[in-house]
């Protein structure tokens, strides 16, 4: 009680900030960022809908074919990378620093494999952005997602470097939490892109 009074009397400056929301400002910032990303993807999916459903463009337009199996392997890689980033976060929450490092490193490598596989797929796919509306929308949707994977990889790279430099602990791992949310979001978006572009 006396300590509390002393603290009360010694306090200078404005009172500590009061957040009425139960979400921390950092998580709220990432949430708003992802909300804007959802709208960006939404505009591209609208273009896809108009090309394929309203205008009735054949999907894929003959004589082109989509590499469904390669994209499926890529999907498996990306989904697995979400498991490893989740494992990394669970590890650091228990104070297992090496689990964090291994999880982040594996996630980064799998994300890199996804991008490299996609680049190889682009080089061998047999059509280009100028080959009709189908090709344009295909490259726009998968390319937009690829750009997000690149951003996610950049975040993962910094997270991994910080993990190896000992910046995270069981008490302080907010940087991993935020990056993990973004990586899962990228993964969810890829599943939607894969289903709409390759499967349906």
């Amino acid at each position, binding site marked *: *009680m006396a300590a*509390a*009074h002393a603290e*009360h*009397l010694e306090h200078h400056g404005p*009172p*500590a900030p*009061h957040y*009425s929301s*139960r*979400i921390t400002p950092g*998580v709220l910032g*990432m*949430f708003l960022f*992802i909300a804007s990303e959802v709208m960006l993807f939404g505009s591209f999916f609208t273009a896809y809908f108009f090309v394929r459903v309203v205008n009735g463009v054949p999907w894929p337009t003959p004589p082109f074919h989509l590499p469904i199996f390669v994209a499926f392997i890529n999907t498996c890689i990306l*989904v697995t990378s*979400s498991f490893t*980033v*989740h494992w990394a*976060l669970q590890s650091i929450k228990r104070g297992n620093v090496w689990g964090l490092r291994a999880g982040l490193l594996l996630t980064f490598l799998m994300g890199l494999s996804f991008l490299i596989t996609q680049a190889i797929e682009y080089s061998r796919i047999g059509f280009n952005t100028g080959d009709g509306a189908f090709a344009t929308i295909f490259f726009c949707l998968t390319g937009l997602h690829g750009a997000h994977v690149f951003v996610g990889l950049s975040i993962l790279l910094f997270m991994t470097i910080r993990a190896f430099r000992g910046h995270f602990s069981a008490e302080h791992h907010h940087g*991993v*939490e935020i990056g*993990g*949310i973004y990586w*899962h*979001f990228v*993964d*969810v978006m890829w*599943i*939607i892109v*894969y*289903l709409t572009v390759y*499967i*349906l």
Partner: protein
Amino acid sequence: MRNPLRSEAEAFRFLMATIVGALVIAGAAYVNRWLGVAAAVIAVGGILWWLRDEPIPGSADPPRKIAAETPPGTHRVLVVANETVGGQALLETLGRIAQPGTELLVVAPALPSRVRHWASDVDGARADAERRLQETVSHLGSTGLTVRGEVGDDDPLLAIADALRTFGADEIVISTHPEGRSRWLEQDLVGKAAQRFALPITHVVVDLDAESSRASTGT
């Protein structure tokens, strides 16, 4: 509705639900493309329904009580009042509670209409609250009490919480209109405040109509 991106664990669960939905869609599309489209519609609806029905973490927890502290040897009273801020019953109650050395903070929440609240057009309501507050503060000050006033948030609970963060009070006085005319009583402000704040609360009912009719008849 639950926010699926509130934390990494929540986002991971959302991803799992998406994977399950994707497997159903892919399986249906393998049989027939239109069956896949139907499965996609059902899967999206199912995930939205799941998010809607999922309880929000912590929503069932009891509210955290705010216990303000005052420096030793002081007695502080937080007064929350709307149009009743200058009411005779409130002034009499404060006169009874206040001892020499008592510090009073009078908070008058701005009272915009619902439309003005949503339009963020609260300047007029704040000016009205400020005017009422000035009259009351000068009246209480003339009786020898140490008193200051603030215009608070239009949510009276939030106004109390805000005031307690800068003014450690020993007790709270809430002044309202009588039952049936008070929106604060309809919202159970006194009960909610007792749940949320670990401080003694005095509820004063001010009947302005009765006071004005008494004044006009001179009784």
